[in-house]
């Protein structure tokens, strides 16, 4: 903890020094950034932008995880399905994010559906491949046990399958959240009239680095809080049965 704090303070010190010796237009010091942040917060614009962006992150994340999990599970369990769907997933995995975003804006229109779908589609193959790994690693011995004791499909999913997939779901969540929020900003920059990405574009037009950081830093901090308060407790909860090393 102390090492982390020291490291963070060192980063801050470097920032202050660099701002002091460099061009303040390119890199404003912390004070300037906090002033800009305070102004954006006081006017309510900062929170409005963060709220809109968070909502997009959440929607795209939920859609991608739900579809990706279902698809990955099916592909991991059924070899034929895997062979059919795999080329699509590989293609999607290698399609640049920007291409997907622009295509969807052209095909669907400059609207919320296109924006969320574009982000979800960028995350989808990644979630699918991770969950597929998990589905392939499911223990056939426990499957047999569930069959012998006539577990219903729901019971099997909840008590046999999901606990085994939990580490994979956690991994997909972790990598997914960071991927999704980065792409959401690009989507907003390209075709939405609000959100953190839109505000960053404004700052770019004005060459206002203070304003840019005033939006980027709080949002990054918010995502770190989500990670610490949601993702990590979830991971601890699903692994509570594992015997702890002495």
């Amino acid at each position, binding site marked *: 903890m102390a090492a982390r704090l020291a490291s963070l303070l060192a980063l801050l010190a470097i920032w202050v020094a660099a701002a002091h010796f460099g061009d303040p237009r390119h890199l404003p010091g912390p004070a300037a950034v906090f002033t800009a942040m305070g102004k954006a917060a006081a006017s309510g614009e900062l929170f409005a932008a963060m709220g809109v962006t968070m909502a997009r992150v959440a929607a795209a994340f939920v859609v991608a995880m739900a579809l990706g999990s279902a698809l990955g599970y099916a592909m991991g369990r059924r070899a034929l399905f895997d062979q059919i769907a795999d080329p699509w997933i590989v293609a999607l995995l290698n399609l640049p994010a920007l291409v997907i975003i622009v295509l969807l804006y052209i095909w669907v229109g400059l609207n919320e559906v296109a924006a969320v779908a574009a982000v979800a589609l960028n995350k989808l193959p990644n979630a699918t491949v991770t969950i597929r790994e998990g589905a392939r690693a499911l223990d056939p011995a426990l499957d047999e046990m569930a069959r*012998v*004791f006539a*577990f219903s499909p729901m019971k099997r999913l909840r*008590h046999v399958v999901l606990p085994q997939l939990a580490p994979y779901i956690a991994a997909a969540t972790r990598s997914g959240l960071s991927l999704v929020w980065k792409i959401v900003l690009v989507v907003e920059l390209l075709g939405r009239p609000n959100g953190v990405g839109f505000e960053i574009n404004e700052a770019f037009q004005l060459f206002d680095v203070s304003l840019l950081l005033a939006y980027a830093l709080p949002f990054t901090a918010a995502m770190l809080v989500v990670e610490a308060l949601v993702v990590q407790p979830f991971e601890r909860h699903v692994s509570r049965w594992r015997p702890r090393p002495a």
Partner: protein
Amino acid sequence: MSPAGDLGPLEVRIARKSVTNAAGQPVEVLAHLAFRLAAGEVGALIGPSGCGKSTCMRIVAGLDARFEGAVARPPGPLAMVFQEPRLLPWRSVEDNIRLAAPAVDEAELASLLKPLGLAEHRAHFPGELSLGLARRVALARAFAVRPALLLLDEPFVSLDGPLARALERELVALIGRRPVITLLVTHDVGEATRLADRIFVLSPRPATVLGEIRVERPRETISPAEARSIEDQVEALRGAA
């Protein structure tokens, strides 16, 4: 409670079961393995290690349909104690049992756990149990189901002598209480003699039934001479093969 006679028999006729080994060659595991158990009976399969006993159990349980032949099971719930405990590591002992046997009530659960020495382990996860304890949980789970067909694949190994005997008595009590057909795999002729109505002696792989020994007064105390005679019959069947 309905008498034992209401249930159908267990009829196993496996003409052939082969598996493909890692090198891609077919390996015959079971050949002409057939036996029958009437309602309420206990059958014991004894045979050398690797002869195909677990393979046979999986077929009887309906887990493996890729074999030539047919299996007729008595209607009603199935319970199995696999060769390994096969508990859900992320569920407590109690949850493992309740998931398999949702109908079990508190009093019944307590009366199952106590004689198996599991009363204080209810809330533990399987990872916190010794192998012997985990095996007992697997037994409790199978008993809790009130099965019509109970399959036990070497259920008492890795337990010490007195404990194994205590569990044998629990099994005998269970069989006495409810109509159930039991199929038991064991290496121990003594155990088979104490528990079974019929002992099926299996050959080395591919397993076939070398012969069937009927136990005259099953699950009653028998003289050392009678026990000795059964052991001799088993040896004779094995020797003749």
